[in-house]
């Protein structure tokens, strides 16, 4: 049975972005119905022109930097392309950053409020990174 997996991705550190991307991509390609809600410090990485590298918060994050671990942005993209995951930017974070949907990278959207995200997430699993 497909599960509904909702991921709140809010940290801007490499480890948390990586883990969120791993869970999202593997769950999505395995047939689960995956929605990722990007807010707070995670959202800027999906604004056009922003650096793709996130700072490590600890030992593993530092180790990942020198390896061929798939980049988190690639995994999120594969979650959407290969597994139909939805990648939703938080409209509140967009307002604070003074950006519009056009400022975000392709595949990220539409801007979504917390009320509709939570209402769609009802009954499914909710994971926070």
């Amino acid at each position, binding site marked *: 049975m497909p599960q509904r997996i909702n991921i709140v991705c809010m940290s801007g550190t490499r480890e948390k972005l990586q883990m969120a991307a*791993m869970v999202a*991509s*593997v769950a999505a*390609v*395995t047939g689960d119905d995956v929605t990722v809600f990007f807010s707070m410090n995670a959202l800027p990485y999906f604004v056009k022109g922003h650096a793709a590298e996130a700072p490590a918060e600890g030992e593993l994050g530092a180790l990942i930097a020198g*390896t061929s*671990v*798939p980049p988190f942005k690639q995994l999120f993209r*594969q979650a959407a392309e*290969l597994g139909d995951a939805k990648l939703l930017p938080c409209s509140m974070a967009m307002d604070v950053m003074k950006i519009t949907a056009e400022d975000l990278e392709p595949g990220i959207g539409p801007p979504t409020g917390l009320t509709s995200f939570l209402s769609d997430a009802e009954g499914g699993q909710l994971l926070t990174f």
Partner: protein
Amino acid sequence: MNQAKVIDACNSFCPGPLMELISHMKRAQVGDTLELLSTDQGSVTDVPAWIRKVGHEMVSTEQVGKVWHIKVRKVK
């Protein structure tokens, strides 16, 4: 029996090899055999788990040196 298409995902880490396999699987024809080369130990259990869940077929798993050769067949 047609030749297996080889996907070299050596040196990539989880879930890189699985994602490589899946993106090739999407483009393959039903009946095609794909051979994934991976140095990621997790692939040995993750690929069969994915194949089982999604409903394709495991053909064989073999380790040659440090490289795992994982053969799967697309069945739908």
